[in-house]
């Protein structure tokens, strides 16, 4: 029985097994969210916050489910353009494995469950921040900005930057400036990360009519902006050390990784002929950059707490 109509291909929902539903949650994005949230949580504890380990684990699970729910709702809304891009054509809805309405319902149910669970396990601020994150990613980014402006991922990047703040709030019931510093690092990291991807996947976004920076303002302007953001991001990356809530180990790591990021961004800017290859290299490094910085905070805090 074929069900589901609208902008994606229709699918018989009896075709979908649990695995297809799981891939609606964007597991790779979810793992990065879990990691940055874990760092926010541990940093909050290192800063004097107290939380029962089991409640912390359940809060982390709720944040992960919330991130997955956002992913499912994003795939529900973007099914039409996902079918046009090589990067997304193998997602369950374009492949006809899950129908759009089931994906939407799945995302909505998980959103409500994740926010409720976080509220029960921690506090109202964390739950409200998680609800706002899901709203921001689905409504502000996916529904509004993504197809409207090349600044889509600049503003939309906030959605991916919220998890450490949500996690911090789940421990302390507050969202202090330290948590917003972690937010700022991810927020400023997002534009160079996605524009590097867009530079070597430009055809994809143009075909889908998504106004990414390279196909609206041109490659040269994108390369210039990548470099500018890389500089600001590298400076923000050192802020946790400068502000005193990360130690000298983090300071050295963030300084070195920031310099390497800026240098690779400069290569993207300067190397007009091989810009696509440089962009691919910067994209790969950007993932390592974020992971290393957050891992350094985690390592320092764990040592401070347990050694």
């Amino acid at each position, binding site marked *: 029985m074929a069900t589901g109509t609208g902008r994606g291909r229709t699918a018989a929902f009896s*075709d979908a097994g649990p695995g297809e539903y799981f891939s609606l949650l964007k597991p790779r994005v979810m793992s990065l969210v879990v990691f940055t949230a874990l760092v926010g949580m541990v940093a909050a504890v290192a800063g004097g916050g107290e939380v029962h380990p089991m409640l912390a684990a359940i809060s982390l699970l709720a944040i992960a489910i919330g991130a997955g729910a956002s992913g499912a709702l994003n795939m529900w809304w973007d099914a039409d353009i996902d079918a046009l891009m090589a990067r997304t054509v193998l997602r369950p809805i374009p492949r006809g494995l899950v129908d759009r309405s089931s994906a939407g319902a799945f995302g909505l149910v998980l959103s409500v469950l994740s926010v409720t669970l976080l509220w029960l396990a921690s506090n109202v601020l964390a739950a409200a921040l998680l609800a706002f994150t899901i709203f921001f990613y689905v409504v502000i980014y996916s529904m509004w900005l993504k197809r409207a402006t090349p600044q889509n991922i600049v503003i939309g990047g906030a959605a991916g930057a919220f998890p450490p703040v949500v996690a911090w709030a789940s421990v302390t019931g507050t969202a202090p400036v330290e948590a917003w510093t972690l937010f700022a690092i991810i927020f400023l990291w997002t534009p160079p990360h996605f524009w590097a991807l867009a530079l070597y996947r430009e055809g994809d976004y143009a075909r889908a009519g998504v106004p990414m920076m390279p196909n609206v303002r041109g490659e040269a302007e994108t390369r210039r902006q990548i470099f500018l953001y890389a500089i600001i991001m590298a400076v923000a990356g050192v802020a946790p050390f400068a502000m005193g809530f990360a130690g000298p180990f983090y300071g050295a790591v963030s300084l070195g990784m920031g310099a390497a990021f800026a240098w690779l961004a400069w290569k993207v800017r300067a190397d007009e002929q091989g810009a696509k290859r440089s962009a691919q290299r910067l994209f790969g490094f950007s993932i390592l950059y974020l992971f290393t910085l957050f891992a350094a905070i985690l390592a320092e805090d764990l040592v401070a707490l347990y050694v």
Partner: protein
Amino acid sequence: MSDPNADKRRKQRNLAIGGLIAAFVVIVYFVTILKIGGQIAERPF
């Protein structure tokens, strides 16, 4: 006539949903115990 492959996937899906609901109930139970604490009977109303 029903497709045996579709039936199998429907069964897997139903089992997964059942398992997740059971897990949610258990998690909420533990959250309640942990939030209220061990001295439930001695709490003033």
